């Protein structure tokens, strides 16, 4: 007497027909999951596209190189390459000069100018040596004529360019004219994508246009596994300040740089799916409650518990599969809209990618689909278990179930408090991991969600007498109805509460962040006017200013004082470090310090003696928060130790940066360049007008950004807002899913209440009164969700500000609480609930009372 199959076809039909009969609730479930999956797929696509774009950009530049020799801020002498060549190492070597440039003709986006030696290229970058694809005249032009480049055929075609055409390129703010010597046509799609943003030039041309005559950025090497001795020999021939390392080291560093950003985005993208799961759980529970009699009958007919379980679970899986399929399609579309935002943020904060199109990675789709189906199945497990536990008796009443739900209220609340404590404990775990941070955050959120039932019961008990006085028997009835259907109303309230709480938490976090950045800008930007070369990224400009520009600005009428800064990336023992070398002795008063390891008033003198000040993110990342910390950097004189004299608050980048006296920098790196000017004007000089004048005077020498203090602050805040645009979009989508959840719950409640409403209508309840009843119920649900969302949102803000942000990016933010965030979110909760009540009220109102009463 063993069942032959896990679920007979007849039962599958029962489940499927149920979904088909309840089109609205099935559709809303599918939509909820679809949106959740779509958001996840979209963000994953955008993240993967951004990463792939970086990989492709890197691949285009490094080709098959396994190792690279890199110089300091000024690159390295090309003599090093000559020496290595002459040494007869027996491994392929190729010199490279690369620079990010712009061209209005080519869409004014970042492009990679790659200068190579065509004769050394063959083992490295196949598209260069695959010169066979190029006509002989193109090759001879490329080799013999100065300022010529090779361009991808498709790119040239897109902008209406052809062989022999001239176009202007902006290199380090200076315009120069280039000629297209030939068009590249690589055989594979991947290389074509990688080359979309590349201008390939002869190394001499690249040196000339970048102003780095006789200098190289890197020397590429191909070293096989058994050639460690050769590697050692090459390393031994290198002067101080240069470094030989594997190519992967660099791309890994960049990946690590964006990992926290992408992880945060991915975590946020799961939010809509989590809210969607509440929706599935609620709807499935509803459907089980509605069908208790059916399950009882099936059990009487000999259906086993396991078969009932599989039947209900298969309904969940069906919804999951449909939702995930729709979500994947929607996700690809949303991903295409999102990829621009993510790439923009990565360009603003981290590095410039030159690749435009990377296609749709199948892994993102599969991941989204699988997570969607698994999550839906998980959400359907409990309702399926509940269905399977229905006794094969028909007498078990709904009221019995509800009284069971009410009895569970206290235990649920206690479980909620337990979850919160678990979350807080997770924050205390050693290691400060981002994942444990998010784990704790989820536990806190779930903990608050588990308080929804007790909050609903408490608030409704309190509201009933008041509403009774205000709205008569309907006012008494509405809260009672919600408590009587607690098993479902509490889940809907929890779903809406989670979405609204996240809105509050995110708003408070972003407000706090913005406020902190504003305070930081006010303390950091003390100059009246700033001059720099436009940067490919939104972070610190690193392109050198023309020395003529520096002198012109210094002597421009109205300038009282001028400080100069050289920003660059240096090779540190624990990876690359962003450094700003400056000559401003007032630095101690122009920053907020988290820690000062030298006596007050002596920071500048300590810096002049070789100490450095590090930003909070850098200090956290490299473990430099303690007094006596030392940072080792690769100088032209070899590795040198720089004591940390102070840790300052800084929000310019999550990688962090280091401040150094310019004198010390010049001593160690012999670099005279300047990348930014900080001008202090005399009293009464109007900064904006003055900046415009200087801009037009200097414009002929180099394209520059001359910005008044106010303009620069506004620009920084614009980048800030752009960075959070995607966060706001994700938050909105989660709220939409929560709205769908509430709508679905109300539709289901309406279905259940048909008979009760029919009797009320038969007894004389008017259409208006019916609307009032439904709206009172939905309004009370929205109100409960909104009220509970306030403490939850506040707790989330605390976790986001003090745990997640600090662990992900190393920033300490000052919590800025504004009541508007709470009031707006409460308003949204109420509005969403009331809007969700319209359709059920309309449908109930149109139902003839006689038919409703007759309904079995």
């Amino acid at each position, binding site marked *: 007497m063993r069942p032959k199959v896990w679920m*007979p076809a*007849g039962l599958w039909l029962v489940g499927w027909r149920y979904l088909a009969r309840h089109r609205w609730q099935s559709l809303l479930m599918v939509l909820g999951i679809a949106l959740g999956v779509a958001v996840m797929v979209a963000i994953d696509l955008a993240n993967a596209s951004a990463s792939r774009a970086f990989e492709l950009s890197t691949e285009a530049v490094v080709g098959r190189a396994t190792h690279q020799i890199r110089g300091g801020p000024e690159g390295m002498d090309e003599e090093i390459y000559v020496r290595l060549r002459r040494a007869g190492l027996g491994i392929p070597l190729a010199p490279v000069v690369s620079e990010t440039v712009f061209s209005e003709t080519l869409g004014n986006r970042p492009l990679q100018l790659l200068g190579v030696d065509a004769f050394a290229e063959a083992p490295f970058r196949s598209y260069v040596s695959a010169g066979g694809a190029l006509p002989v005249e193109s090759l001879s032009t490329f080799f013999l004529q100065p300022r010529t480049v090779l361009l991808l055929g498709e790119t040239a075609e897109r902008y209406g360019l052809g062989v022999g055409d001239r176009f202007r390129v902006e290199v380090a703010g200076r315009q120069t004219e280039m000629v297209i010597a030939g068009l590249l046509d690589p055989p594979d799609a991947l290389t074509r994508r990688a080359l979309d943003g590349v201008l390939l030039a002869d190394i001499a041309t690249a040196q000339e246009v970048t102003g780095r005559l006789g200098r190289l950025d890197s020397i590429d090497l191909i070293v096989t596994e058994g050639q460690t001795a050769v590697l050692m020999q090459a390393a031994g021939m290198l002067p101080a300040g240069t470094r030989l390392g594997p190519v992967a080291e660099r791309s890994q560093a960049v990946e690590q740089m964006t990992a926290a950003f992408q992880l945060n985005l991915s975590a946020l993208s799961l939010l809509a799916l989590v809210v969607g799961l509440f929706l599935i759980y609620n709807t499935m529970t509803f459907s089980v409650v509605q069908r208790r009699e059916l399950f009882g*009958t*099936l059990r*009487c007919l000999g259906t086993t518990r396991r078969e009932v379980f599989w039947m209900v679970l298969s309904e969940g899986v069906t919804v999951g599969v449909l939702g995930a399929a729709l979500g994947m399609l929607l996700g690809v579309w949303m991903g295409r809209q999102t990829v621009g935002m993510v790439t923009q943020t990565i360009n603003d904060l981290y590095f410039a990618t030159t690749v435009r199109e990377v296609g749709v990675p199948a892994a993102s789709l599969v991941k989204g689909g699988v997570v969607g189906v698994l999550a839906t199945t998980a959400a359907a497990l409990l309702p399926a278990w509940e269905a399977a536990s229905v006794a094969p008796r028909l007498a078990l009443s709904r009221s019995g179930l509800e009284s069971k739900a009410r009895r569970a209220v206290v235990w649920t609340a206690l479980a909620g408090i337990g979850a919160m404590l678990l979350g807080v404990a997770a924050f205390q775990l050693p290691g400060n991991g981002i994942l444990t941070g998010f784990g704790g955050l989820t536990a806190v959120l779930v903990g608050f969600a588990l308080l929804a039932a007790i909050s609903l019961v408490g608030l409704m008990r309190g509201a009933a007498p008041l509403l009774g006085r205000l709205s008569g028997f309907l006012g008494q009835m509405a809260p009672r109805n919600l408590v009587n259907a607690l098993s479902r109303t509490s889940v809907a309230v929890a779903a809406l509460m989670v979405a609204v709480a996240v809105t509050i938490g995110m708003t408070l976090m972003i407000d706090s962040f913005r406020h902190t950045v504003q305070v930081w800008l006010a303390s950091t930007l003390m100059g009246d006017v700033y001059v720099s070369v436009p940067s490919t990224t939104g972070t610190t400009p690193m392109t050198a200013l023309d020395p003529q520009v520096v002198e012109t600005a210094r002597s421009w009428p109205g300038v009282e004082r001028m400080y100069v800064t050289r920003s660059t990336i240096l090779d540190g023992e624990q990876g690359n470090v962003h450094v700003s070398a400056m000559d401003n002795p007032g630095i101690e008063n122009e920053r907020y310090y988290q820690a000062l390891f030298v006596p007050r008033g002596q920071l500048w003198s300590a810096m002049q003696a070789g100490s450095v000040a590090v930003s909070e993110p850098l200090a956290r990342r490299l473990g430099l928060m303690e007094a006596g910390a030392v940072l080792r950097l690769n100088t032209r004189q070899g590795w040198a130790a720089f004591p940390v004299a102070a840790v300052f608050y800084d929000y310019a980048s999550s990688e962090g940066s280091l401040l150094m006296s310019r004198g010390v920098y010049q001593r160690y790196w012999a670099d005279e360049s300047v990348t930014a000017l900080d001008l202090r004007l005399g009293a009464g000089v109007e900064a904006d007008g003055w900046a415009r004048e200087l801009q037009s005077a200097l414009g002929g020498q180099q394209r520059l950004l001359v910005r008044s203090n106010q303009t620069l602050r506004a620009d920084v805040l614009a980048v800030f807002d752009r960075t959070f645009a995607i966060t706001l979009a994700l938050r909105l989508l989660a709220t939409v899913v929560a709205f769908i959840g509430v709508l679905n719950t109300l539709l289901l409640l309406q279905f259940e209440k048909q008979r009760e409403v029919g009797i009320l209508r038969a007894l004389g309840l008017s259409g208006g009164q019916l609307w009032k009843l439904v709206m009172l119920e939905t309004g009370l649900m929205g109100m409960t969700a909104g009220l509970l969302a306030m403490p939850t949102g506040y707790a989330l803000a605390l976790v986001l500000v003090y745990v997640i942000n600090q662990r992900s990016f190393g920033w300490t933010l000052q919590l800025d609480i504004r009541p508007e965030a709470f009031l707006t979110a409460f308003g949204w909760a109420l509005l969403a609930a009331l809007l969700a009540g319209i359709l059920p009220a309309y449908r109930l109102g149109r139902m003839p009372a006689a038919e409703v009463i007759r309904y079995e």
Partner: protein
Amino acid sequence: MTFLRLEGLSKAYTEGGKRRVVLNAVNLSVERSSLTAILGKSGSGKTTLLNLISGIDTADSGQVWVEGLELTRLSDQERTLFRREKIGFIFQFFNLIPTLTVWENLTLPLALNGRMNAAGKARAEQLLAEVGLGGRQATYPDRLSGGEQQRVAIARALVHDPLLVLADEPTGNLDEDSGGQIMELLNRLTRENGKNLFLVTHSLEAAAYADRRLRMHEGHLEEAAA
């Protein structure tokens, strides 16, 4: 030949903190191919007795033997599978699955038993014709009258050729005429198919079809007058 045997069967419920004995050491033997009616007032324990015989519920003490198999020793899973194969159920409120058509409802026991083959289908068609709903295969239950729904339920109770048909107030939700027709049908079909019918009812008209009538009174079964 004894087909069903109950020995010292007892069942009590706790209500409002008080223990209420519904069945008190009930003993019974039922012969094969017979129609037995259990009469009694509402709440007298008739349905509880049916639930214990079908294995839907478990007894506090005592044994239930069906065709030599001690049901009270089986696990929940075993009892479910026994019920699926050996028992046909007819309920007061018909309990057809609203989302399935008449045909799908009727053949559900065949599907559950993995017997949805040509022979099974032929039997289902024959039974549907016998209950007078031959042309209504594609109709959904909400389009049928109460009497018609109960006919489908009777056919469903017999379609998988069970050992025992349990009918719990099969006419309780029908008017007098329909109730009479249903009892006629039930009586004819169970006898024609050589089935054992165990009928729980408070209707003397319905009980009149039975070979043996018993009355449930204060937890005990007593023979009732014809």
